[in-house]
């Protein structure tokens, strides 16, 4: 994986501006998929812009004249789980970087935010099954471990989200915030199953789809022999404008189907293409404003 150094620098500036907690970013102000069970207030923390104002403890404000929000036990123990697709399909790129590089940068971005906010985070890789899961920890050292993992990962195998999530959810001991980053190019039935499993075992789930512009637009012409990067199946065809149009329609249909599933479960679903600068993509994800823009 190749991390763009400027991305990390920009990330640093971004976190200063944002001052957001990753947990807030991921939950996005939406009600948790798991309804509250009379949560106990664990402690308070300073209010940051974007926090749910309903959590402001006005008694503390009255005493201190500073804004603090209640932190519940559950929130206090919230861990950020990032599940990253490491199948062969992610080893594809026609633009500046491959999909895995892009996805990994996004994952690293979220991990970096967690470090800045002293929150626990972890990263797991999957293809047909779960691979390389790290123990949730805080701090920069853990961040570098994640970076090392991402840099040394081999991309191989088919994608099976259902299988991978099934295995991963057994490892989740508490409610967590989950981010799945993949191209989600696999049969819809398998995807559906995986999404449902993840939603049941997470407080909040965000799904980030990474696609390459080449696979979106089919940026080739004439007679082409296509080989599937995962199944190795070959298909020869002539790319006429009509064919490309039909392909795009089918791809969009697939994406819309995933979006519908996510909407029905209250899951955030975002599609990004690798020709978009990562920092812009990250800002879109965290919903903030980049300094100087």
């Amino acid at each position, binding site marked *: 994986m190749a991390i763009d150094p400027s991305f990390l620098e920009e990330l640093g500036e971004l976190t200063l501006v944002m001052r957001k907690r990753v947990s807030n970013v991921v939950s996005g102000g939406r009600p948790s998929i798991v309804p509250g069970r009379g949560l106990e207030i664990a402690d308070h923390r300073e209010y940051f812009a974007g926090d749910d104002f309903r959590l402001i403890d006005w008694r503390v404000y009255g005493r201190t004249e500073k804004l603090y929000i209640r932190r519940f036990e559950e929130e206090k123990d919230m861990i950020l789980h990032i599940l990253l697709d490491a199948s062969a*399909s992610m080893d594809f790129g026609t633009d500046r970087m491959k999909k895995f590089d892009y996805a990994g940068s996004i994952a690293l971005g979220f991990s970096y935010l967690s470090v800045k906010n002293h929150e626990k985070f972890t990263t797991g890789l999957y293809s047909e099954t779960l691979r390389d899961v790290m123990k949730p920890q805080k701090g920069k050292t853990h961040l570098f471990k994640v970076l090392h993992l991402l840099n040394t990962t081999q991309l191989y195998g088919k994608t099976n989200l259902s299988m991978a999530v099934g295995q991963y959810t057994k490892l989740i001991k508490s409610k967590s915030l989950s981010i799945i980053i993949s191209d989600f*190019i696999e049969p819809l039935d398998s995807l559906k199953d995986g999404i449902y499993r993840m939603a049941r075992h997470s407080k909040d789930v965000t799904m980030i789809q990474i696609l390459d512009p080449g696979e979106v637009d089919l940026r*080739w012409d004439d007679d*082409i*022999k296509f*080989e599937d990067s*995962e199944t190795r199946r070959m298909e020869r*065809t002539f790319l006429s404008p009509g064919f490309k149009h039909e*392909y795009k329609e*089918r791809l969009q249909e697939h994406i819309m189907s995933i979006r519908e599933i996510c909407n029905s479960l209250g899951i955030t679903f975002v599609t990004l293409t690798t020709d978009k600068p990562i920092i812009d993509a990250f800002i879109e994800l965290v919903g903030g404003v980049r300094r100087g823009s």
Partner: protein
Amino acid sequence: MPPLGLTNTTALWGLLLIVPVIILYLLKPKPKHIVIPSVMFIMAIEKTKRFSSFLQKFVHDPLLLLQILIITVLVLALAGPFIMTEQVQTEDETIVVVLDASASMKASDVEPSRFEEGKKIAGSIVSKLSEKSFAGIVLAENIPIAALSAGNRESAIVALDKVECADTATNLGDSILLARDMLSGSTLKKIIYVISDFSNSESLSPAVAKKLASLEGIEVSFIRVGNSDNNLGITNIKAERSADDKRKLFLGFNVKNSGGWGGMINVRVKSDDVQIAGSEEQINAFSNTFFHFSPSISDDEQLITVELEKSDDLEVDNKAFALIPELKTHRIMLLTSENRDIYLRLAVFSLDNAVLKPVFPPVIPDTEGYDFVIVGSVNPEVILPGTFRNLEGYVEDGGTLIVVGTENLEGLYTDELKKLMPVEIREIVGAEKTVRITQNHEVTKDITLKNVVVKRYYKTVLENDSVSLLETENNSLLAYRSYGNGGVIYFGVNPDEKWSNLQHSYSFPILLSNLLNFMNRERHTVGIMDHRTGEYVSLPGVVEITTPSGKRATTNKLFLDEAGVYTLGYEDGKVDLPVNLLNEQESNISSGSSDAVMGSEFDVEKKPAKVKKDYLRELIVVVILMLLLEAVLYKRRGLI
């Protein structure tokens, strides 16, 4: 399947074009090999295109196959493939159908008539012609008539539909020669089909005409229609007032039986449709019987009809007609000099229905009451000014002026007289010449001028509306014209012995009598005696004609192709014109030609021939379709 042949085998070298096409295809870069994650969508699309998937099992690039096929088919088309088949082929021909349209073809032994049967046969010949053939049609009446000069199959069929049979005799020989001439310019196979009953032919024999045509490479086929001899016909008729009793009719006619039938027949004689005589007579087979009747008749003009009441195969000759003029006494004033125009006076005196009054100018009595005024040898010096003006008035009121060609005529030939005359007189010719009857006419009937000569005569030029009856050296000697309600006659055969020897001819009084009778009829100046079919007559002026079959025309020249009574419509009344067949040969309807094929057995012979069937058109269509398919494929690929 007959073997395939090629007209132009050199074109097959064009197949070599396939080689560069294949080379270009091979040189074409191989398809790119792209590894992408989203092949599942591509495969899903390809599954929906079953045909192209199927095709791609055999051919990776259908466009290449199509292009090779296009080149192959195009080259094959240029090579001109053909097969030889044997089929009955209609070669291109130029034909003329000579169709007998004479009276005998109206015989009904073949239903509805021989002529209609002939038309049917002609129609079947014409309908079997190829598209590029030509056809002409000649109707063989007493003169050949080209009904169609050179038309295609369709126009010939239309022309045949319109032709009609006449009541005339036939002239097959000349008709065949006309057909020969019509074929002279053609380079195609030439055939003449002669359809007739071959009962007779005037003039040239058909067999001789056939030989003459054959000399020019023309095939002549004789096709016979009709095979009956069952016919009685009136072949001759004479009807006039008896010489000794003008109130009695002298009627004589011949009935010819051409066939083997014999028996009793009824004969009826009618005057203006009222029977005045009749009898039942025995007719023997193959006989010619003379009949005579002398019934009483009135003084009036009347149409005499003779009818044979016998049903046979030809009806047109079962009736004959004759017009009997009105019995009138002619009152004649002769302007003459003492002891002049003696022979003329004697001739008139000899007529029992003429009264002559010689008058010696300058004193001319009132012309009222006189039917004729004859200007004879009268001294011009004694003719008072205005005399001819008065005579003009007399003629306009209905009188007839006869101007005799005398030596005094030059002196009398003023503008006033010139205006009246049917001829323009020039100088006197002093030469002995014979006299010729110009046309069959009521005036010239029953006369013969074989030994009549003129010694002196005026050179003349016939006026436009005049009718000439006698002439010599193209100079009219007897002519007449209408003028107002009357008429004017130029009598150039002066009976004076210095001018001619007419006075010695027994025909002179007959001529005179005929002239007087003719001119003294109702003022229609018809000038026509009973005629036979096939004759042309000139009328003194344009007249409305109604034929026996009811057709109408307005003309001054009439071809008599129908037997029966024509009606001539003048301003002051109608005049009947009887026309008869009176032709022994036409009445004999038995067939005469052994050289002819019966119409019922005739068929246009078509020999099977080897025919080349080429496929150029079909191959071009295939190439065009394939080019369209290629365009569609290019369009689907987004290349155009």
